[in-house]
């Protein structure tokens, strides 16, 4: 903090004109074993959206924690308004006019919107509701949002909760707004709203930092793009240059920065399909369908109804069939019953009415173990919350759903040698990057945790696989790997159901796509050229196609 006084006047930015709102100068941050940020220099200007793009582990989150005052750089300086400044606490970060919206929602669910916004005032001051409401209206006008200040946060959609977070981040008229992967939880509509908000803030002269790993968002929102790779700035596109490029050029440049020059040659060759570059961009590669629907369906869901619960939309009369070798995509805005659907099929959630048949046999009453024995597999979207036990080893997590079963258990006694040996084999075969089979699974990266789950669920005995948001939160490379494994499973004859909010992904891998809306399957359409329009209509609740 004393730096402010000891330094001479503002250091001019590289542009020469006004100093950047904030800048990093040759910042390095190390953690034991890794260099999270290595000699990074970046500038953030007023009235500009600066997109930081990078894969998981590129150093994006470390950068956020530096600016938010949660970590201090080991080397280099952070400049605020041109002056070297030590941001030694989150409070200090706020005082310096830096607002941060973290990846996860950090609101108190039981409090109302306005109460959440009033938190964080000083200890002794009275809560001034009137003044707070005034500020709330100001910010609502600024952001173009309409919210009831007295609505409890628990009742808001994720998009709305994020709007509250943004308001809180801007509460004291902050000049720099950091958004850490703000779109990962949002619906397409939510993303569009967020884009409009960012535009308004930009016009007000706020400097915005948008952190994402989605290319499309970088082009759509960014005035300046910097690409982080393995802790260094792999490249940047200045605003003028960015404007001059067309989309193909931008894409090509950014991909090169993100993955290095070896992308085309290396990975693509052994995959044997289109050049990796194309694939990474999801130039829609529709699968050729080979499903024989004259056969008995592998799975048949008839008028399924689940009991209502407080947090998730329940199922209201869902019926559909799923054939072996088929990929059925389930589209829909998050929270329209997808979770109940997946849990009901896995046996985790009882059916209230309706019937479930597996290859013609009634399995309505079967619980998870019976259904698993019959080949039903479920890859949950809550990988660390319920899919794995984070503190337990990779090996234990690989057999989590087999506990007590032959050959790893005999008469209830564990054969750890066999479990570990099999785990080593799985790790090798599925390219799970882990120091050993004894490493706690919670220490692995998100992509590798997902590999553990896919290895456990897409095994040789799988008949029906249900995957909920299988690529959510993964970087491009791991998204690709996950989708490849899913498609490969279908090719082996597994009946696959993939729930996703990413339509492009569904168009790429599905044979048919069903749409969930308010707990109902409002339509199932063939994945053909007309599918996109039909599905978008269905997602809004329009009548079945």
């Amino acid at each position, binding site marked *: 903090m004393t730096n402010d006084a000891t330094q001479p006047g503002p250091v001019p930015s590289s542009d020469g004109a006004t100093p950047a709102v904030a800048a990093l100068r040759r910042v390095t941050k190390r953690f034991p074993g890794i260099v999270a940020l290595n000699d990074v220099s970046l500038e953030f200007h007023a009235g500009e959206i600066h997109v930081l793009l990078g894969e998981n582990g590129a150093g994006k989150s470390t950068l956020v924690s530096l600016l938010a005052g949660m970590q201090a750089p080991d080397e280099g300086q952070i400049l605020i308004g041109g002056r070297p400044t030590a941001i030694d606490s989150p409070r200090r970060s706020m005082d310096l006019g830096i607002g941060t919206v973290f990846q996860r929602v950090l609101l108190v669910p039981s409090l109302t919107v306005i109460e959440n916004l009033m938190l964080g005032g000083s200890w002794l001051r009275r809560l001034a509701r009137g003044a707070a409401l005034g500020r709330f209206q100001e910010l609502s006008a600024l952001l173009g949002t309409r919210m009831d200040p007295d609505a409890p946060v628990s009742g808001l959609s994720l998009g709305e909760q994020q709007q509250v977070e943004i308001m809180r981040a801007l509460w004291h008229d902050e000049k720099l707004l950091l958004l850490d992967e703000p779109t990962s939880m949002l619906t397409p509509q939510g993303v569009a709203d967020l884009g409009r908000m960012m535009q308004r803030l930009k016009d007000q002269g706020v400097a915005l930092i948008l952190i994402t790993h989605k290319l499309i968002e970088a082009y759509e929102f960014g005035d300046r793009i910097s690409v982080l790779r393995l802790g260094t700035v792999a490249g940047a596109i200045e605003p003028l240059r960015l404007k001059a490029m067309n989309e193909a050029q931008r894409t090509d440049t950014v991909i090169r920065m993100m993955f290095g020059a070896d992308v085309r040659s290396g990975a693509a060759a052994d995959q044997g399909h289109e050049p990796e570059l194309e694939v990474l961009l999801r130039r829609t590669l529709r699968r050729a369908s080979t499903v024989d629907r004259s056969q008995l369906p592998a799975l048949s869901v008839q008028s399924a109804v689940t009991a209502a619960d407080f947090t998730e939309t329940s199922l209201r009369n869902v019926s559909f069939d799923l054939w072996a070798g088929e990929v059925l995509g389930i589209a829909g805005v998050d929270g329209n019953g997808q979770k109940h659907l997946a849990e009901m099929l896995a046996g985790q959630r009882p059916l209230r009415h309706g019937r479930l048949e597996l290859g013609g046999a009634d399995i309505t009453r079967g619980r998870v173990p019976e259904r698993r024995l019959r080949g039903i597999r479920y890859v949950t979207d809550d990988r660390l919350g319920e899919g*794995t036990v984070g503190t337990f080893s990779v090996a234990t997590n690989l057999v989590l759903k087999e506990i007590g079963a032959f050959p790893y258990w005999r008469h209830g*006694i564990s054969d750890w040698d066999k479990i570990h040996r099999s785990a080593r084999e799985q790790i090798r075969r599925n390219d799970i990057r882990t120091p050993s089979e004894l490493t706690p699974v919670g220490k692995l990266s998100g992509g590798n945790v997902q590999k553990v789950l896919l290895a456990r669920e897409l095994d040789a005995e799988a008949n029906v696989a249900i995957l909920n948001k299988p690529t959510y939160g993964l970087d491009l490379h791991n998204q690709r790997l996950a989708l490849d494994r899913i498609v490969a499973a279908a090719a082996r004859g597994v009946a696959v159901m993939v729930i996703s909010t990413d339509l492009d992904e569904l168009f790429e891998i599905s044979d048919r796509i069903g749409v969930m809306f308010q707990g109902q399957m409002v339509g199932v359409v063939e994945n053909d050229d007309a599918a996109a329009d039909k599905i978008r209509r269905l997602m809004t609740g329009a009548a079945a196609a």
Partner: protein
Amino acid sequence: MSNVLRVLVPVALALIVGGLILLVLGKDPLGYYGFVVQRSLMRWGGVQETLTRMAPLLLIAAGLMVAFRAGIWNLGGDGQFLLAAVASAALAPALGEVLGRGPTLLVCMLAGTAVGALWSLIPALLKARYGVNEIITTLMMSFLGTSFANVLIKLVLRDPDTTVPQTRSLAVDDRLPRLFGTTIHWGLVLAVLAVILVHLMMTRTAFGLRLQVLGANRAAAVHAGFRVERLTIAAFAVSAGLIGLAGAVEVLGVWGTVRADWNPAFGLLVVPLVFLARFNGYAVIGFTLFFSALMVGGESAARKVGVPQHYVLVLVALLLLFLALVEYLDHSRRKPGAF
């Protein structure tokens, strides 16, 4: 840092700081520790007393290992222990007239186990069905249990031949047999076996692993299709059953009777030991030995040096504190910031 050091460093620190406190109080720390060691470990009588004290502590520890590993805070040990003690104390003299010594002891131990398990049923059902916090319910049931034990002794099971309200005494010859001519009873062997068996059960069996999954991540247990309600109730029953067995063993091996208002309150004393040992059965045996020696020696040492008898608890508290501290420092030293 090796596991041994991680335990020995806090022990040493606790003894040093405990000594400093004695110094501040104007007492002689070396004298105190000397008495403790001499009384509990240097004299044959003291050693026997220390080992005898271990029996109930070990059984309680075995019970707590099961519960804590399954993420269940069974803090109702005192009620489960006392009710089981009273049940076996009441049964033993009566049964002894009908059955022989062996069957009587066996039945009484089983009865103690059953009573202990039964006393955990309400918290178990509330937890399994409605997710009611078991810390509250087991503590409440413990208050009820200790009071109920007193009521039973004073009103129902009272021996009319004594002035102090207590159950009928079991003759010394009818109690648990002694080990090789010592004053230590066979309950110690049973207790050591129980701890080792529980340790093996938790680490080497499917049931133990399921309990561990339940304790580490309940949602994962549901996801993997465990019968979570049954597992919860089973964990409660095994835990409270072992604690009940501890009560029966203490009565059948040492006292032969339960007096009204008797409550050794071992249940909560053992809790920190189980955590110190990180749920490892072998470490539990070591810590229990250490703690028994402190208890046995501490009682007379306190009298000699002139500090309160419960000074032992100050040492245990310091031990926990330093253990947590060493753990924390060690953890933050090697923890990488990201993976």
